């Protein structure tokens, strides 16, 4: 599209450390795009390169058909909302918000400032000083200060990190609303996977300077492409397995002597060594003797722990080969949770599985938790 933000082969090195490694990504115009990753993965560096606050070691950044790689920050139609807000303490709110406008030579700023204050729901704050505002209010002013310039891309550097939970939820809804209303491209950097999935149209999971997976939240959550993504977004149970055959559209897998099935369409690798994965919330528990539905994979085990969290209960069970498996069970019905020591059968609808490639050398150890398998008859 016309004004997409395109990063091509962007690399950033600090001395011997490579923070961003040959990154290429296209952020569609008007979308809410999240860069998700843990500390040190390079997401903030990438953002700062788009803003012009860091120089690239190599690569190009284009906005539409304009190459902005070598432009100084004040020449780019891009604005940033900083993690620490960076409001100018010696100017009042109105002068803060109008700063960018005045720098570009726009004289009558009062009306635009008032409109912005309405948008972020802080009318009448024009004459106050930043120090007088609470964290949440400062964050909204920082947003207003950036948005008022109508940039082509708005960059947000973990803007909600310093807010308490309730306020953060509120701001997440606000930001999403504003983005939909204003229609500007938002590039949002965060380490909070929930936040990314709630707000963004597209999420890019970054690890060690490169993007591991990119897609809509549901897509990358339901079908992660690597063990890293499967455990960074939510949690996954991963079983070391081998493909032992095919049955029509399904793959037949063997793991630790047990047999499983998964659709070939839910597999990133269709032969040899694989990881068989399933999300804990997809798994149900049945007591031995109960019938488990057809087309379900199942694993027997003994419950080792129960965590009751009100809305749901998390169970940990130990498999016959000593691996710990977690199961999230929504407390849809009243009743006592199962107690540790109970023998259970964990089962899940086979198409809920996903299959990942397993390189040589990983997953060959029995388990990371303990070494003594239980004596459960297969």
């Amino acid at each position: 599209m016309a004004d997409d933000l395109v990063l091509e082969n962007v690399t950033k090195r600090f001395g011997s450390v490579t923070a961003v490694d040959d990154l290429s990504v296209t952020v569609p115009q008007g979308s809410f795009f999240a860069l998700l990753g843990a500390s040190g993965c390079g997401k903030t560096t990438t953002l700062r390169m788009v803003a012009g606050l860091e120089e690239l070691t190599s690569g190009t950044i284009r906005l539409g058909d304009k190459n902005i790689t070598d432009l100084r920050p004040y020449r780019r139609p891009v604005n940033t909302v900083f993690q620490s807000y960076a409001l100018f303490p010696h100017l009042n709110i109105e002068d803060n918000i109008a700063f960018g406008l005045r720098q570009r030579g726009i004289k009558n700023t009062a009306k635009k400032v008032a409109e912005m204050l309405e948008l972020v729901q802080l009318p009448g704050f024009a004459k106050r000083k930043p120090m007088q505002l609470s964290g949440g209010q400062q964050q909204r002013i920082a947003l207003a200060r950036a948005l008022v310039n109508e940039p082509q891309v708005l960059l947000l550097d973990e803007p909600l990190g310093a807010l308490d939970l309730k306020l953060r939820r509120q701001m997440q809804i606000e930001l999403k609303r504003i983005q939909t209303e204003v229609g500007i491209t938002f590039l949002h950097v965060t380490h909070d996977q929930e936040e990314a999935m709630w707000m963004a149209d597209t999420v890019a999971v970054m690890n060690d300077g490169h993007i591991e997976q990119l897609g809509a939240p549901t897509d990358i959550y339901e079908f992660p492409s690597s063990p890293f993504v499967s455990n960074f977004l939510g949690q996954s149970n991963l079983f070391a397995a081998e493909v032992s055959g095919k049955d029509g559209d399904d793959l037949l897998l063997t793991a630790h002597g047990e047999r499983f099935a998964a659709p070939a369409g839910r597999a990133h690798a269709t032969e040899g060594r694989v990881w068989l994965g399933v999300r804990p919330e997809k798994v149900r528990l049945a007591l031995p003797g109960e019938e488990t539905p057809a087309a379900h994979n199942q694993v027997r085990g003994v419950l080792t722990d129960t965590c009751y969290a009100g809305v749901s209960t998390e169970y940990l069970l130990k498999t016959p080969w000593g691996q710990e498996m977690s199961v999230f069970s929504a407390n849809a019905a009243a009743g006592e949770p199962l107690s540790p020591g109970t023998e259970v059968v964990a089962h899940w609808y086979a198409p809920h599985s996903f299959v990942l490639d397993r390189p040589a050398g990983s997953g060959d150890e029995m388990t990371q938790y303990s070494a003594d398998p239980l004596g459960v008859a297969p």
Partner: protein
Amino acid sequence: MRFWRWVADHWVLVVGLLVLAYLFLPIVVVLLLSLNRPANRLSYDLTPQWTFDYWLHPFGAAGIGDALRVSVGIALVATVVATVLGTLMAFALARHRFRGRGVTNVVIFLPMATPEVVMGSSLLALFVTMRVPLGFWTVAVAHILFCLSFVVVTVKARLATLDPRLQEAAMDLYANEWQTFRKITLPLVLPGIAAAAMLSLSLSFDDFIITNFNSGTTVTFPMYVWGAAQRGIPRQVNVIGTAVFLLAFVLVIIVQLRGRRKARFV
């Protein structure tokens, strides 16, 4: 009894206040001396005779007005030059990473670590060798030298507390480097620069040793006092001393109050 209990609990504060009183003791004595008529010219004792004469004729003693004028002039020149040069250096040291930074830090620290006798005498040697006539300007040069280090340290400390993100935010909002400096950095560093200027003023006005070495026949206020100490100090000296103290004290209090009122909104 309760009073002593309070003292025991707050003994640190009490000791602190006592030390503070100790600091002010001589000032009070100076004030008293300025209002007192001495028995003879060489006496430093207080007599029962009190008078306002000296306050009414503060420049009555010969040469005191000139000495004061010279001191103030040198102080102003030294402050302006040292503050400008020192601020530039502080910016270089605080904001940039460059080769020779460590060496520069040491060279700036050295004048503060050098005893005044050494600095004064080495400057004298320089002026003599270069055959520069001693006087107002040689003293000013010397004062700029030792004020420079203090200015750098003060402004650097203030710069260190400045959030670099503010400059980034300004550039992100279309201000180039010069505009960012003018509109964001400078206003926020100004309190540090002002403090450095005040420090320079007082250091320069107060200096004796280095001045003595490099002044030739020019007489500054401290030199006047020193010279008079042999012949008998006119009480006007105490008047001037008290007056300058009060003036500076009131000035600083005013600045503090203004700062406090502004701080509620900054």
